[in-house]
């Protein structure tokens, strides 16, 4: 029996549990023995001109080795001017690639003469130890002349203040589609509403960190990233170096969640400063730096319009997205593109319109965060479905059932240009409703409403489909070698930061070759060993990197078959591999068995080695339904999530332990957005949630244990039948939880409460509400 699909605990764990991981700050290598510390001086202003810099006092402080500002950056070639008419040149075009726009909108490494968000790097202080660095950074004196701060979508669109000279608006990208209300003709009911998908902090427990050493023209660079090879590419471009003279190593990485895709300006500066000063350097950010310096996620304002028949069939849907990209457009073109691509969700809706704009504001730049554009799409359509259900007086689960794409319609091409590979959406919905005991929950809700209980019950349903490995064409690499002692080594271009790659890849090798997992070493994240690779994001690892390992194993198997045939003087076709004991034998004759050690030894050095660049996959579309059950205290507005039941179908499951772990973590981050978390700024652009004492990161007390329902519908896109599972939990959990909160108070006439549904918001909604929908209004609350 294959090990695939069985519950295997992780090979990574014993080390992490007994001696701890080796994160960048833990590296005690000889190369970094004398590494000095970098402390960034960051802008305390959201928007200001820099009129002076005085670093003298800091330079004279104890332990200070150097203070670097833009004036020291005389060794880098400025980027070429942008093409006139391009987005970078100030023109406006549809969409964009997941790359910074550059040109007029470009982001410097260190602030030049203007700062655009609180936390923007202005200077670097290099000291022998980090305590000295904090002291000396205080002594760097920067003169700022304040400019009006542009905050929020409304602020960006409604102000004469422009963030970038040479532009004529704060809108770098406008997709330009016009709204056409004709699609809503013939609808019995139409609902329109503007909702907020609030700004979040990704907040991996390990923040950003990098170390660098420059010796004899070669840069060695250790960094907490999701992508060693992409980081090398970025460094080569930024520093004007040949990629071959850069070695990027990712030691253990303490979470990423999309915010560690590649490297950003702060991390590039570590390498630049190491070259500039000739010293080994290390930078490990504090949490307060992390909350304003690492990219944020989400930050969309969405106007949704939905219409359909009174018996529950949705006929038309429109989504208009405004993406707040923060001070510099990094992935700005791309996030709303994904939101629009997935706008229609799992529903069969004939008429769909989408539109998007991207605005710059004086806030931390926004980029990928677990789901990256897709949770925003799902949040919008799932709110819309509930609004429509409320409008026609139909149960939200029933409205979904009536509109889900039926299983006989796959592959299904959506009006927004996606092709969903495989799915059985109705079955996933029914499974979850049954597991949740949906009818019983509705009965209990009715009982509490009738009794006027203080604790009202809310039941939220959210069905979703998402896209994983959207950039499948970029592929992934794997190299597999079987050694003379019978052990194997996998070199993967994919990158682990908690997902369990090492366990899963070893399972794939054991399954195909019969080499026990314990004898399989997995190596990732070192560009000297693995020059080509893409890394981890967009739930791509298993379906690209895993398939590459699988294919490498198949190649090695065929090599071994030829070698074994030679050893046994038998025809290749007469040989079989007994994966139970890892032995090659003449079919049906175990006595002829040759171990992997025998075969590899016979094959000689490099005899059993395969290198695969797998680019054969396409995007896949996991799906599912989440049901959240909340209690809302109608006297205080306090919400408690009491149950969360999900079916998340990501095709074939290789290791249920890992898949469940991904779902658990995703659900928690989704619930966190619905209930608690939000990065807030005041009108002057000062972050109000810039420490973990203010930012409401979700804890164990705010969550129940989750109830997971299994569902496996294999895809035919790749030979393992797998889709991605890394982001599904977040995508489904956010709207399910938000819908549950609103459902709990819907009998009071409340139709919408923006996220996060904090006690103050919920209480305000309740206090303004009376049965029938009369009452006051407050921001983020409506009926």
């Amino acid at each position, binding site marked *: 029996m294959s090990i695939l699909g069985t519950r295997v*605990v992780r090979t990574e*764990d014993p080390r992490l*549990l*007994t001696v*701890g991981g080796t994160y960048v700050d833990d590296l005690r290598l000889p190369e970094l023995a004398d590494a000095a510390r970098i402390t960034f001086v960051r802008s305390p202003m959201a928007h200001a001109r820099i009129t002076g810099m005085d670093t003298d006092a800091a330079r004279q402080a104890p332990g200070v080795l150097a203070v670097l500002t833009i004036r020291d950056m005389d060794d880098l070639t400025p980027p070429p001017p942008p093409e006139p008419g391009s987005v970078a040149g100030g023109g406006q075009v549809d969409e964009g690639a997941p790359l910074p726009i550059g040109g007029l909108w470009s982001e410097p490494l260190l602030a030049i003469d203007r700062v655009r968000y609180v936390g923007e790097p202005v200077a670097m202080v290099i000291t022998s130890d980090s305590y000295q660095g904090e002291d000396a950074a205080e002594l760097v004196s920067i003169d700022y002349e304040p400019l009006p701060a542009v905050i929020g979508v409304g602020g960006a669109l409604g102000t004469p203040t422009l963030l970038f000279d040479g532009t004529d608006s704060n809108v770098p990208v406008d997709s330009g589609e016009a709204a056409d209300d004709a699609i809503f003709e013939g609808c019995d009911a139409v609902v329109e509403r503007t909702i907020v998908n609030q700004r979040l902090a990704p907040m991996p427990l*390990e923040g950003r960190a990098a170390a660098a050493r420059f010796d004899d023209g070669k840069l060695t660079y250790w960094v907490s990233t999701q992508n060693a090879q992409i980081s090398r590419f970025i460094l080569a471009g930024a520093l004007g170096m040949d990629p071959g003279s850069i070695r990027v190593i990712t030691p253990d990485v303490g979470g990423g969640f999309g915010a560690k895709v590649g490297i950003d300006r702060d991390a590039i500066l570590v390498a630049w400063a190491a070259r500039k000063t000739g010293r080994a350097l290390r930078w490990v950010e504090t949490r307060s730096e992390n909350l304003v310096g690492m990219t944020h996620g989400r930050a969309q304002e969405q106007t949704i319009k939905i219409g359909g028949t009174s018996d529950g069939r949705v006929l038309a849907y429109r989504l208009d997205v405004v993406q707040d990209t923060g001070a510099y457009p990094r992935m700005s073109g791309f996030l709303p593109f994904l939101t629009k691509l997935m706008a229609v969700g799992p529903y069969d809706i004939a008429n769909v319109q989408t539109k998007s704009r991207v605005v710059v504001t004086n806030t931390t730049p926004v980029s990928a965060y677990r789901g990256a554009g897709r949770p925003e799409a799902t949040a919008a359509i799932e709110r819309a479905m509930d609004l429509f259900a409320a409008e026609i007086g139909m149960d939200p689960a029933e409205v979904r059932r009536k509109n889900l794409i039926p299983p006989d319609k796959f592959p299904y091409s959506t009006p927004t240009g996606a092709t969903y590979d495989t799915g059985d959406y109705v079955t996933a919905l029914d499974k979850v409703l049954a597991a949740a005991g949906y009818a019983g929950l509705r009965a209990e809700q009715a009982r509490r409403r009738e009794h006027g209980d203080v604790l009202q019950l809310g039941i939220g349903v959210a069905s979703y489909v998402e896209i994983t490995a959207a950039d499948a064409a970029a592929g992934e690499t794997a190299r597999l070698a079987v050694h003379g002692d019978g052990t194997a080594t996998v070199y993967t271009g994919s990158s682990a930061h908690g997902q369990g790659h090492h366990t899963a890849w070893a399972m794939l090798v054991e399954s195909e070759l019969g080499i026990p997992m314990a004898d399989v070493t997995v190596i990732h994240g070192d560009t000297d060993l693995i020059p080509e690779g893409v890394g981890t994001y967009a739930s791509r690892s298993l379906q690209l990197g895993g398939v590459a390992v699988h294919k490498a194993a198949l190649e090695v198997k065929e090599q071994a078959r030829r070698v074994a045939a030679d050893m046994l003087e038998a025809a290749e076709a007469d040989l079989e591999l007994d994966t139970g004991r890892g032995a090659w034998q003449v079919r049906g004759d175990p006595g002829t068995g040759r171990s992997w050690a025998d075969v590899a030894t016979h094959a000689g050095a490099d005899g059993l080695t395969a290198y695969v660049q797998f680019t054969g996959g396409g995007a896949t579309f996991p799906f599912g339904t989440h049901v959240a059950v909340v209690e809302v205290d109608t006297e205080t507005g306090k919400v408690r999530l009491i149950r969360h039941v999900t079916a998340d179908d990501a095709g074939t499951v290789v290791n249920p332990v890992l898949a*469940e772990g991904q779902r658990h973590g995703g659900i928690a981050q989704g619930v966190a957005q619905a209930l608690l978390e939000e990065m807030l700024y005041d009108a002057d652009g000062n972050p109000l949630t810039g420490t973990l*004492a203010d930012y409401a990161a979700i804890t164990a007390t705010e969550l129940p244990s989750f109830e997971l329902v299994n569902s496996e519908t294999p895809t035919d896109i790749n030979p393992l039948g797998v889709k991605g599972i890394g982001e599904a939990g977040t995508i489904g959990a956010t709207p399910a939880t938000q819908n549950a909160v609103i459902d709990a108070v819907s009998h009071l006439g409340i139709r919408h409460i923006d996220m996060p549904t904090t006690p103050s918001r919920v209480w305000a909604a309740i206090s303004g509400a009376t049965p029938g929908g009369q009452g006051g209004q407050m921001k983020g609350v409506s009926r």
Partner: protein
Amino acid sequence: MKVTITVNGNQVAADVADRTLLVHFLRDVASLTATNVGCDSTSCGACTVLMKGAGEVGGGKSVKSCTVLAAQADGGEVTTVEGLAMKGAGEAGGTGEMHPVQAAFHAEHGLQCGFCTPGMVMAAVSLLAENPSPTEDEVRTALEGNLCRCTGYHNIVRAVLAAAPAVSERRVG
């Protein structure tokens, strides 16, 4: 100032700056890097260790070592996750086994990226020392000061509940 702390049974003495935090003493002086720093507001618990002050009895209680001065631990004992496993197979009386809480985190997939793990494990050890058979709610409440961004806490809670009987047995044994 001169600080002497018994860390995982070994006496570590050093002259350190007065303001040196215990977590930096552990990481930079004692070279025990499992204990991580995850925030600067005593919020995340990644740096949780067990500390027994000079003259105190018992197994020590959990502290966030980012909010304790090394000087405050002078003359005391500190246990980090590196000191938790039973003595190694090669050591006298050792079996090389993980502590039941570590073993349960492994069995229940109670960790992913591993960054919060040392602090989370120490918080769990501290909880089970005070409350040998906690309910799920008690586990969740006890871990409120320890953030994990990967697991959604689901498997961490299961691991602590699963470890409880073995921890009790170990204490009696």
